[in-house]
């Protein structure tokens, strides 16, 4: 492949992958069965995908892709997107279509469209997706960048290192959770908290989680682990598939590090990141994209009521279609809210009318990545945040 017999795009992609493999001590390349690319419609993203298209690139493994901007919806319902934004989004979408990507525009491919099985070797970028596929499913992916995942989609191979090897999937950090972690929102706080207690790259194993988290709980947990830190895999002992017990999680060895997370630690995170009560200008949900259950929860609270501020619910096209069939879309639309597909909270410049405003969300990741746009998010559990959007104020 490096010799160019499969074309210039494969040669170029393989050169980058071989470089990564060399740095991390890979002995060989191994085939993948799935890929997910964190499309972002930002400058580097467009430059790289167009470069591969220019070299004649075509994906051997068609990857699903992250959201960017739903231009038509925002033009109609929020603001006219500036020409520079329209141009880069249109060009990016065209290039990904040409290279053979699946234009799913969702950041939760592991819940719909691109769901791996136990042991499957895959190349997933999107920092919240990587921990989900490794930890919850037991599939095997390193923390790919969007570019290295696209290279893998082109060649159909990845260098074999890191989390592709049994020994690197074992836990080295024992995390004792001595706080009551139950709700989906509790997992936002726990996910944010852990890297602050132990910033190292080792795989952690958590004990003290009493109930199996919902898919949304796992989703929130992985997203926050990779916002306040960088954790590509974890175990919940007795819950996730590679950790039926402590011995399995640690491969029979003793933990190299021990961390305890107390109720006070969780409360400390809440105090530091969640923000004080007060007026809000808008509400934003869907980082990561909301599931149909979460959309249903919102509809039940908003039924027969009217939002006091703009409400944006970001989700996949499939989930919006389901919401339409189930009546949630009508309920939320009548309340004055929006369910928008294919869109990310972090793609400039689509949300610029809200720069400098205050808002509510259920997602610490959404709040963090919007700090550079001077949007002050208060963070509350989804149901509390919806209640706040109905009155225009976070009251507690």
């Amino acid at each position, binding site marked *: 492949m490096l010799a160019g017999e499969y074309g210039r795009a494969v040669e170029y992609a393989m*050169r*980058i992958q071989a*470089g*990564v493999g060399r*740095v*991390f001590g890979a002995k060989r390349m191994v085939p993948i069965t799935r890929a997910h690319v*964190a499309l*972002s419609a*930002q*400058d*580097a*993203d467009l*430059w*790289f995908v167009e470069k591969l298209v220019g070299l004649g690139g075509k994906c051997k493994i068609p990857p699903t892709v*992250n959201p960017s901007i739903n231009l038509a919806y925002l033009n109609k319902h929020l603001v006219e997107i500036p020409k520079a934004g329209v141009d880069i989004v249109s060009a990016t979408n065209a290039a990904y279509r040409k290279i053979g990507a699946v234009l799913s525009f969702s950041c939760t491919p592991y819940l719909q469209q691109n769901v791996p099985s136990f042991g499957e070797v895959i190349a997933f*970028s*999107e*920092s919240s997706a*990587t921990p989900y596929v490794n930890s919850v499913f037991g599939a095997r992916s*390193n*923390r*790919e*960048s*969007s*570019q*290295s*995942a696209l*290279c893998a989609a082109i060649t159909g191979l990845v260098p074999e290192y*890191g989390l592709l090897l049994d020994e690197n999937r074992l836990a080295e950090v024992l995390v004792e959770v001595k706080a009551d972690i139950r709700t989906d929102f509790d997992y936002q706080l726990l996910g944010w908290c852990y890297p602050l207690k132990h910033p190292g*790259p080792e795989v952690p194993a958590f004990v003290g989680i009493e109930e199996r988290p919902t898919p949304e709980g796992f989703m929130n947990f992985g997203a926050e682990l*990779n916002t306040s830190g*960088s954790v590509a895999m974890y175990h919940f002992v007795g819950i996730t598939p590679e950790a039926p017990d402590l011995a399995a999680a640690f491969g029979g060895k003793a933990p190299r590090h021990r961390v305890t997370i107390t109720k006070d630690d969780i409360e400390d995170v809440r105090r530091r990141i969640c923000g004080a009560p007060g007026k809000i200008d808008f509400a934003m949900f869907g980082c990561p994209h909301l599931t149909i259950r979460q959309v249903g929860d919102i509809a039940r609270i908003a039924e027969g009521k009217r939002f006091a501020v703009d409400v944006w619910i970001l989700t996949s096209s499939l989930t919006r279609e389901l919401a339409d069939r189930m009546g949630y879309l009508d309920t939320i639309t009548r309340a004055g809210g929006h369910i928008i597909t294919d869109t990310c909270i972090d793609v400039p410049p689509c949300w610029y009318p809200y720069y400098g405003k205050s808002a509510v969300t259920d997602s610490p990741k959404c709040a963090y990545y919007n700090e*550079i746009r001077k949007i002050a998010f208060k963070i509350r559990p989804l149901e509390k945040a919806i209640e706040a959007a109905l009155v225009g104020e976070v009251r507690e």
Partner: protein
Amino acid sequence: MSGSCSFACSPISGGRCSGPALISDEAVCFYLVEPETGVVVEKGHALEGRSMEGTILVAHAGKGSSVVQMDGLFKITKHGKGPVGVVLRNPDPVFVSALLIMEIPSVYAVEESFFETLKDGQTIELDADAGVLRLLSR
């Protein structure tokens, strides 16, 4: 007067360059660097207010999502305000693939004594092809 000492290392992306050392003892995120000036704008960062332009960045590690690291490095490089070379102490796949794609001469697995000897601003000659870092004294 000039003298030099050499340190072995392994290449990430090939090439040769030289420039003053810009040392970051904490992880670097290129998204929080102003593209037009190469100046680090991350609040409270060890390099806050300093420019990467023309330097050899000696980074403890990288940080940032699978998207932002590459986008940041791309933008400062396009403006000609990026580092000319990188010494990466703790490689991660996202940082490494960004260096390979941007073809910035860069190395890892450097002899530990390099980090003890090196002073901020000291001129480094980086030869990724030969796997050598040379420190020039004034």
